[in-house]
């Protein structure tokens, strides 16, 4: 099984924090994604600072899934994440992968 990693997308020069999901967490993630509703894709201006989470290892094609501000995007599709529930759940899987000062920045976004 391909390992599934989640990355906190927050820096520009510095490497972003990342952590690996356990098998139960991957099943939970797939189940949550399966319930999302498709929406039109929109091109937005770049965001600086915290810009969500990036999941790798989940796609059959090797592509990444981005989760930010109520939207879940693969290379080709966009889905609605009502209440940012998936984003919050993913942040909850980070454990100690995110340092305290970075947590403070992320919390201020909600």
């Amino acid at each position, binding site marked *: 099984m391909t390992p599934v990693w989640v*990355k906190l*997308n*927050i*820096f*520009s*020069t*510095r*490497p*972003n924090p990342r952590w690996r999901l356990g098998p139960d967490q991957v099943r939970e993630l*797939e189940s949550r*994604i*399966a319930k*999302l509703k*498709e*929406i*039109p*894709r*929109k*091109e*937005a*201006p*770049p*965001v*600086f*600072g915290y*810009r969500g989470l*990036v999941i*790798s290892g*989940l*796609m*059959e*094609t*090797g*592509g*990444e*899934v981005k989760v930010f501000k109520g939207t*879940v995007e*693969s*290379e*080709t*599709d*966009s*889905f609605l994440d009502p209440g940012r529930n998936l984003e919050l759940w993913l942040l909850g899987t980070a454990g100690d992968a995110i340092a305290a*000062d*970075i947590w403070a*920045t992320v919390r201020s976004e909600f």
Partner: protein
Amino acid sequence: MSLLVTMHVYSQRANPSWFLSSAQESRFNELFRGLREQTPLKARGGLPIFGYRGFAVSQIPGSEPSFFVSRGIVDPGSHQASLLDENRSVEAFLLESSGIGLDMDLKGEVDVVLQAPVKKLIELRLGQAAGMPSGCPNANTAADAPSYDPARWNAISAVVGNNNCYNYATNKPLNNYATPGKAGGINITYTSCDGDGPEGPVKGPAEGAVADGLKRTGNFPAKLDKGEGWYVAALLSEKSDDCHWLRQDFSGCWSHKNGEDEVRNVDADGRLITDPRLGNFGKYSIFCRFMIANIKVNIA
């Protein structure tokens, strides 16, 4: 050699697959050749939603599919344009080619999915248009300045994910997520542009860049002749935890790569970047300085 068809429909269970007969293979090629309308959309890379997701057609079992067919798009891979199959004839044909080997209930379910109008699916997925730079001041300032070529940086996910703003500004897609100063043998912090000065122990990102071969300049936008490099700009985060780099393209406007995001030529307000001192870059609100990069710069 027969083509192997795999229907992508399950999450945990193995997906059903079958070989095409020679006659079916000829029909598949005939249908493919009959498609005329190109589309920028790809059939690969959809979210792993449960249920029908499309067909992969492979020449050799276990190899990368030669074609992926999904939602009215026939995708022959990253080196060729996808083709629009408005009435989903290729998908319908591939479904039918399964013969009696496919569970009839599943076949019926997919048959219903294939009735969805392609136009509506396409409308859902389209909606992004790339703006070409125009009205850029200081065009052709630097003879060596790279062209704005987002496809070079954005087309392959490994390039997007493994190169940051410093790789982009120095025009080196080395997939090493470079840190200023690392190649030059110094460690930096992000508390200020120049740390605590040339003699102090704390080094900033500009000092790191100098160690890598970039040059400081206070003379932007003086003309740079061939061999003299191109302008880059460093911005510091107001939180003193990071910095952001931009580069001036040959057009005279500026572009950048925000960490592991795609290369863009607009700021946070969606405006073309004509001067990095004036754009909105969110938390990177402290202009650090202009510098000059060149092809001899070494980053790690």
